[in-house]
């Protein structure tokens, strides 16, 4: 099968935008993506794949065409729903379409508007990706389910502490404070994070990502399109996905996300690389515990070693393996359906040397890790920099 490349990527700012609609946000992301891909126009796009959970209801049916038509893309559009992993999966579907030869250029993106609903409606929507008939009927919230994972992790690993959860927040806020697209552009101290109000024991407010409005879009093109162009093309070296039981209680472990492990394994195998080859990563840190689990699930360290990796600064932006230099979901924000595509935007931006003041030092391989719910779905995508491919 032929190779697929990311040849353009763009996003809106992530935040709260009462003057914008889900459609206008998506259209802005499409504009930025097309604007980043020199020479590509709307007419070159063969197909679109759009991820959204549909928070607030809005256009639950036909939510794909509702945004692509508004953005001037009159192409076959498929909506992907895999909770917070919706647009990570949308990118994977785009890769499949290009690799199969059915399309040459596919726009993959996502959107979500989460900040315009009433407090009660928001609480309802934030829980819809938990297992509804059993888990949810214990009064569990999304934060509550991750809090159960954190509780189990802290119990299982004597060395791990609540401060380690706070260290995730401190690092990601430090990164996000440098990112003009980030929702929470401020730093926080270990003390701020640890002593903030408890949301679901042991998680405090700072251990939880915010609710966010935003959209992101990436352009996936075939090797044939890339060969005939001057596009900054980052090869999609590997993409892996996995599903699992939706409810945490239905899984054999509460201190790992098996779908992440399996998705990573598949992505590494396809890319022919291993965790040691990854130069930087955007991981799914919806709650602080999720970033610790990600280090272990993705093979960056062994079980129980994530706190140490973090404490030693390995995942800081100047460390050996920077994680969430964008600020992650924690600081950049988490517009559910846009998050996965937003991670690819960050990878492509860094791999093509477009990150400006935030630019990492010549990374060759970037990894994006996107999780749906508490681990019912996961997708891992590995991108290679143009220069590592022997291109310009």
């Amino acid at each position, binding site marked *: 099968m032929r190779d697929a490349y990311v040849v353009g990527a763009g996003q809106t700012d992530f935040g709260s935008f009462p003057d914008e609609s889900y459609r206008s946000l998506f259209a802005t992301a499409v504009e930025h993506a097309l604007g980043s891909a020199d020479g590509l126009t709307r007419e070159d796009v063969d197909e679109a794949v759009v991820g959204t959970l549909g928070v607030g209801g809005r256009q639950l049916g036909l939510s794909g065409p509702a945004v692509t038509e508004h953005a001037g893309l009159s192409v076959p559009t498929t909506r992907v729903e895999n909770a917070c992993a919706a647009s990570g999966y949308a990118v994977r579907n785009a890769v499949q379409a290009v690799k199969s030869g059915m399309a040459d250029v596919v726009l993959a993106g996502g959107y979500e508007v989460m900040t315009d609903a009433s407090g009660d409606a*928001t609480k309802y929507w934030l829980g819809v990706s938990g297992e509804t008939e059993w888990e949810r*009927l214990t009064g569990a919230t999304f934060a*509550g389910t991750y809090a159960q994972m954190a509780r189990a992790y802290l*119990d299982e690993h004597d060395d791990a502490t609540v401060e380690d959860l706070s260290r995730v927040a401190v690092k990601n806020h430090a990164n996000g404070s440098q990112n003009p697209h980030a929702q929470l552009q401020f730093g926080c101290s270990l003390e701020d994070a640890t002593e903030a109000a*408890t949301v679901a024991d042991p998680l405090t407010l700072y251990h939880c990502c915010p609710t966010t409005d935003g959209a992101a879009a990436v352009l996936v093109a075939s090797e044939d399109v890339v060969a005939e162009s001057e596009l900054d093309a980052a090869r999609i070296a590997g993409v892996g996905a996995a599903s699992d039981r939706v409810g945490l209680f239905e899984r054999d472990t*509460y201190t790992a996300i098996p779908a992440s492990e399996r998705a990573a394994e598949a992505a590494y195998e396809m890319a022919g690389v291993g965790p040691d080859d990854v130069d930087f990563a955007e991981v799914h840190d919806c709650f602080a515990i999720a970033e610790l689990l990600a280090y272990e699930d993705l093979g960056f360290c062994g079980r129980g070693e994530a706190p140490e990796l973090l404490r030693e600064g390995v995942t800081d932006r100047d460390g050996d393996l920077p994680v969430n230099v964008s600020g992650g979901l924690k600081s950049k924000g988490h517009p559910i359906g846009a998050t996965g595509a937003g991670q690819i935007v960050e990878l492509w931006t860094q791999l093509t040397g477009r990150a400006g003041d935030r630019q990492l030092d010549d990374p060759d391989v970037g990894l994006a890790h996107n999780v749906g719910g508490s681990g019912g779905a996961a997708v891992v995508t590995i991108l290679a920099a143009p220069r590592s491919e022997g291109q310009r």
Partner: protein
Amino acid sequence: MRVAGVGAYTPRFRLAGDAVADALGQFHARGVEAVAVPDADEDALTMAAEAAQRALDAAGVDPDAVDALHLASTSLPYDEEAGTGRLRSLLGLPENVASAQFGGSTDAGGAALAAALDGGGGADTVLVVASDAPQGADDEALGHAAGAGAGALVVARDGPGRVAGRASQTATYPGTRFRERGQTETTGLDVTSYDRQAYRETLAGAVGELDVSGVDAAALQAPDGDLPYRSAGALGVNPEAVAAGSVVEGVGDAGAASAFLGLADALREDDTDEVLLATYGSGAASHAFRLVCERDVPVRAALGSDQTLSFAAARRRRGDFDSGTPAGGGAYVSVPSYRRTLAARQRLVAGRCRACGALQFPPEGACPDCSATDGYEDAPLRRRGVVETATTISQGGAPPEFAAQQARSGEYASAIVAFGAQGGGDREVSVPLQVVLAGDDDTPGIRDEVVAVPRVLYDQEGVRRYGAKGLPADARRR
């Protein structure tokens, strides 16, 4: 028909009369020191299930063996729709159980027992349950006295309790205690001498038919802690016997369950050989029973508690200070979907995969172990489990369908609890369970034990959903 076992349950919270006097400047419930207060997720049906389960356990009767169910209450959640249907599923009684519901006045418990003794329609084993949580205005004695509780009797062909005599009376005394259609608070005209006469004469009409000279205890209808003693002489019993069959001082007016609670309390004493059980309800009607214990009648009763609430906390649990279930939607589990899962949800019935034999919960869909879709054999779980992980959902953070409960009861824990199958043997299964916290209860720790209890989950579209919740094992009263 004989009495084979007795169960009783009162909620674990108490509101002291002194606290009411401090808050309202008045407390008119005579002879009442404290009243029982149901938690926000308890109602007459969950209390009925608690008492009935204890009665079955005491009598050593399997739910499958019950062939008639008599339920008495004046405060069921629905004016129309049989509560017996819900209670049947909470207890796991067979679907061919004959059922009857008694209400209309606090005499309902006696009426339910009388019908059981009449043969319960040819039944061999009748479960008689009286459960109530009356409510009244904050400026009326009836409101001050209002307590809560449930009592249950297993009436069977065999049993140590022989009903040596019984009688009933129906007199006509309007206006002593009534609740108009659609109202939640019961009231009365408060015509003191008339009210006392109605109670005394109606009860005496029934009790007078019996030889009560030898009773050790008189479990009398107790709307307060004064009337039973005031009427003792007219009923031919002494005050010591009334005291031996009374819990009203510490529980309050338990309505239709009142005399049943007194009976359970009396039977807990080893030297109780003969008890008068006498119910009374406004209107007026009464039923009296002379129970002779040929051997000790087994009892399981959770009657006492020292967990007190402030006046505000008690009224908060009643829902006085919140706006109910908020708009904005809740997790939508349709009623038919909910109904399909009742056995698992209410009684923790897991399943054994028909292909590989692995224990699974909930027992639905492909087997997680072998992926077979052959279905499951019922495998009831034990009631006591061990916490695998848990978190406390902070105040204000509950999903909309649990917002009212959290506003009323405070923070709760959402946990995953490992339960083994009854009969023991193989592995445990993981069950997601809300854990009810109270007072100073902390989030249950990993490896802590919890006990499954019947509670209200939430109301949606006017339909109440019941399910198992967890209670920290050390907060569980026998």
